[in-house]
């Protein structure tokens, strides 16, 4: 990666030092972001490969492609890889890492060495997980429900649990670094009300990472203790309550959904104003909605447990609270839409992804209302309805946001432009493939097909075939950007410093930025998204 940009004359973070050492021992947040980029892409394709195998198995009602145990391991490891090794680090560790110091006018994150340590922890966790995967894998479902995980499963639960424990610490340290950086490293004049919404949403994300992840960590440790040392904390044989595990697990794992979606919302909040040439509508409401989601998101976890055997009364409380968290999400969608009103809109690739995000997130959010609803959830819980819902949020939302962000900031990251028409084509393919894959699953779920089924009654086949067909299209849509991004590193046109005519400090430095981000330490005297003062780039409209 480092060698691709040698022609550049200007000094930048990519050509300052080369060789393996200069990368593996770097404390530059931008290089660490690229380390993350490479590693999460690797895990994304592993998780994606598992997904394809799952979809292929489900092409026919009989369990004919793989064994039942293999299938159980596939969906377990698909979930764990995608959540802990791709989605949670995705936008924060790549784009957040790269951009937050640039956006607030800092030379680096507050703790560059801890940042590198985060990546090493992630890699250690990744190697531990790969080791677990190669020596037999784990079959508990990504949720590790006890007592199956603590007593009955005879797969590598301890290994997987410890890997995720370590990955959790990587995530905690990233969050810690962001919080301190946003508090302490802002450039003169960069007040809280001038912070880009991307930074606000990462601040909210970090709060969740910091206060939620440790609870997952201790929960997994207790499961490991149960398996390794025969402690009995969740074990019903000694009077333990398996639901206690679920409470502790979802205390983290529900807010973890917001760890995945909030950064994507941040990305969309940057892209929509830029390609509408407008200040974002209701800045402070969008910013506060992020914080609101982070806080209220911690009050709703037991809506995952409506049929698990919790008390009727706490189910009522949690359902009510779950509806409260939908309000800030709705506020965001309305504000993005309103931002486009009377704008000057172009349909560049990032904007297409932002459209896709808003649409799919809206559908994911609305179907969330079904699941928070005590009347519907008992029917659709643990069916494909849930699968469809959270893929609309996590893939339709978070991954769309991630890809949109990658396209938006790729010129800044690499110093090169990607081929715009290929970009638009890929965005379209992803959108269509996604809907074909996951929309049928809503219907499947309401018809009653349970999740995690290796074989299923034949009447569900038609919809499953559609879904599998969609997944192959989706796969193409994901491989394409990978190809042309790599291609553009060598052959892409040289990117100007601000190809989109975007507001934001990151566009005021060169592309790619120098090692210490700015030639001159910036002093901010303007509000965020001051698009009235930034000329629109001619290029983009001309190309169309």
């Amino acid at each position, binding site marked *: 990666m480092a060698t691709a940009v040698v022609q550049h004359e200007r000094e930048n973070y990519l050509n300052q030092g080369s060789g393996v050492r200069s990368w593996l021992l770097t404390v530059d947040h931008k290089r660490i972001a690229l380390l993350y980029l490479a590693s999460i892409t690797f895990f994304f394709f592993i998780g994606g490969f598992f997904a394809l195998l799952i979809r292929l198995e489900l092409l026919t009602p009989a369990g004919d492609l793989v064994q039942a145990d293999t299938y159980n391991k596939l969906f377990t490891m698909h979930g764990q890889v995608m959540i802990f090794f791709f989605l949670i680090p995705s936008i924060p560790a790549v784009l957040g890492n790269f951009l937050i110091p640039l956006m607030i006018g800092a030379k680096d994150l507050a703790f560059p060495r801890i940042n590198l340590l985060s990546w090493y922890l992630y890699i250690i966790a990744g190697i531990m997980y790969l080791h677990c995967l190669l020596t037999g894998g784990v079959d508990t479902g990504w949720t590790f429900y006890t007592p199956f995980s603590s007593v009955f499963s005879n797969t590598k639960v301890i290994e997987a649990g410890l890997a995720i424990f370590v990955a959790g610490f990587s995530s905690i340290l990233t969050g810690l670094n962001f919080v301190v950086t946003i508090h302490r*490293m802002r450039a003169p004049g960069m007040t809280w009300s001038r912070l880009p919404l991307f930074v606000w949403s990462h601040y909210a994300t970090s709060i969740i990472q910091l206060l939620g992840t440790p609870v997952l960590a201790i929960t997994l440790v207790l499961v490991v203790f149960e398996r390794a040392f025969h402690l009995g904390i969740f074990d019903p044989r000694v009077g333990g309550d398996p639901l206690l595990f679920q409470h502790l697990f979802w205390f983290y794992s529900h807010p973890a959904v917001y760890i995945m979606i909030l950064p994507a919302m941040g990305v969309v909040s940057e892209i929509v104003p830029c390609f509408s040439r407008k200040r974002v509508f209701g800045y402070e409401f969008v910013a506060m909605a992020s914080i609101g989601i982070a806080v209220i998101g911690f009050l709703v976890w037991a809506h995952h447990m409506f049929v698990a055997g919790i008390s009727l009364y706490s189910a009522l409380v949690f359902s009510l609270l779950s509806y409260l968290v939908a309000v800030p999400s709705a506020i965001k969608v309305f504000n993005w839409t309103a931002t486009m009103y009377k704008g000057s809109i172009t349909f560049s690739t990032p904007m297409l992804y932002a459209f896709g995000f808003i649409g799919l997130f809206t559908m994911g959010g609305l179907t969330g209302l079904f699941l928070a609803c005590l009347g519907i959830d008992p029917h659709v819980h643990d069916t494909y309805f849930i699968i469809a819902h959270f893929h609309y949020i996590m893939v339709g939302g978070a991954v769309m946001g991630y890809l949109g962000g990658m396209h938006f900031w790729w010129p800044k990251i690499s110093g090169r432009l990607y081929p715009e028409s290929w970009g638009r084509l890929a965005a379209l393919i992803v959108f269509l493939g996604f809907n074909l894959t996951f929309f049928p699953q809503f219907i499947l779920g309401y018809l009653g097909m349970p999740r995690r089924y290796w074989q299923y009654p034949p009447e569900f086949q038609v919809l499953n075939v559609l879904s599998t067909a969609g997944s192959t299209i989706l796969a193409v849509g994901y491989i394409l950007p990978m190809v042309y991004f790599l291609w553009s590193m060598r052959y892409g046109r040289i990117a100007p410093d601000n190809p989109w005519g975007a507001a934001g400090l990151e566009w005021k430095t060169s592309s790619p930025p120098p090692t210490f981000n700015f030639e001159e330490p910036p002093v901010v005297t303007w509000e965020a998204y001051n698009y009235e003062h930034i000329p629109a780039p001619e290029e983009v409209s001309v190309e169309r």
Partner: protein
Amino acid sequence: MSDSPIAVEHAEGLQHHFSNMEQQRDAASLGMWVFLATEIMFFGGMFCAYLIYRYWYFNEFAAGSRSLDIWLGTINTAVLICSSLTVALGVRAAQMGKRKLLVMLLLFTLVFGFAFLGIKGVEWYDKYKEHHIPGAQFNADDLVRDYPQIHIDQRHEQIYFSLYFAMTGLHALHMIIGIGIFAYLTFFAWRGRYTGGYYNPVEIGGLYWHFVDIVWIYLFPLLYLIDRKPLR
């Protein structure tokens, strides 16, 4: 945020990406506080389990608590409080630039730390001898015998001891990490790194140590003092 231009000449210990020492120190101390917040949630998961099972199985918790050695528990609490004192005085010594005093206080802290772990080890060994370690060997017949007034279910007794070992074990792990940090600090304090105005590491290392002390301040009554009143 300081408006002062970037310090060209690097003060000792100032990293390149900070504008000045004040910013660096504020960042480090905020970082440690935020980390301690995550630690509260880490132990919080266990406190949550503790709370629920104590509410369900109070008898077994009471009996288990009685079987712990209150003398060793109290002494250990005192040992940790003493170590917190030496840490606080150590930070003060660093602030005043007194190298020898700092090194001595840090060494005292280490001694107290090891003393705590040693006493904890004795307690654990007692549990081992009494077959109070959860698992196949677990046996609480002695508790049934010793406290005939309390109705004990041996299975539920295991939950108490599981939590006892999980909580004290993870606390001890934090102590071990703390001892590692303080060994490091002692070495560089001896080299004189922290007595020239830059004592930030001592300060934030101290924050961590005090936190581990506070966890114990709660563990002591929650594990040892559940029910000590005379049995009827």
